[in-house]
């Protein structure tokens, strides 16, 4: 996802449609907004699922996945497929790592675990919030939750780790799929 980030500084256009904390300095806010615009605008699968970024700052990211019949896993109940939840969580977790990096660069998902705490309600959009709770030089660690309205009433709880690929410490070049 992040070679995008390598060129985001050179992007001429800038959208202010995404609002985060206002107490950030304007350069930081601009960088985060641009990261989020590129993430949404340039990743085909994020667009295909109509995901949007609702909030983004260095402390965490919230994304929204609108309900769609295309995402149904069980036609009898109309419930979302777990894979759609996985995709939302992988996206929000990756973006949380980028948002936490002082100088965003290429990252790749190393592993992702998701616990499904309760069924998602059919017909209702899903939100996910992610926080990068430890950013080391080579690896980033993220927690994420998916929910409808209330973050404390989560539908899924996840933990993921990411390889920071720009680090020159001898990591394999082909770290992951994302």
């Amino acid at each position, binding site marked *: *996802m*992040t*070679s*995008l980030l390598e060129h985001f500084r050179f992007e001429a256009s800038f959208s202010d449609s995404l609002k985060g904390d206002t107490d950030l300095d304007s350069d930081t806010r601009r960088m985060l907004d641009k990261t989020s615009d590129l993430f949404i605008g*340039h*990743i*085909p*699968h*994020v*667009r*295909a699922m109509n995901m949007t970024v609702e909030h983004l700052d260095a402390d965490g990211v919230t994304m929204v996945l609108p309900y769609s*019949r*295309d*995402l*149904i*896993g*069980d*036609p*009898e109940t109309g419930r*979302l*497929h*777990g*894979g*759609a939840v*996985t*995709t*939302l*969580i*992988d*996206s929000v977790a*990756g973006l949380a790592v980028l948002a936490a990096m002082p100088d965003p660069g290429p990252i*790749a*998902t*190393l*592993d*992702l*675990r*998701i*616990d*499904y705490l309760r*069924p998602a309600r059919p017909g209702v959009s899903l939100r996910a919030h992610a926080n990068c709770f430890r950013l080391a030089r080579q690896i980033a660690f993220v927690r994420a939750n998916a929910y409808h309205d209330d973050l404390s009433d989560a539908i899924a709880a996840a933990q993921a780790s990411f390889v920071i690929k720009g680090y020159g410490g001898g990591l394999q070049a*082909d*770290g*992951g*799929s*994302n």
Partner: protein
Amino acid sequence: LSLLELVDRCRRRADPQLLVTEIPYARFLGIRTSVSDGGLLTVLEFRDSNIGNPAVPALHGGVVGALLETAAILELLWEHESEVVPKIINITVDYLRPAGPRDTYAKALITKQGRRIANVSVQAWQGDASKVIATADCHFLLPGGAPDTG
């Protein structure tokens, strides 16, 4: 047509693809499945819309996770008589190599099938089956089942 009847019909025709066409999300991603070596071989056709990193390019990690989970669910439906779609309890995905812009294959192995819980592990690869690109371990709840006795 109930799910049980559908599975029955698929088995009689030795064609599990009908199960996939009943899952809207599997159609959305471009997943198909066929019988192979006694189990199922599930394929995620390459589509531009499944790209998660246009620079590499690579498939979205979530799509790879979705393929692994779908392969596990289809294997459970195919191998065991379940009247409802198994419910996922949790999934752990390990990403081993980038998933390039090509077809991706997945094969699931039911490690243990209890009355209530099933453990399934899945591997995915692309051109070379020995170069696994991702693995998943999943637990499913088989609704309506009696409590496990161990």
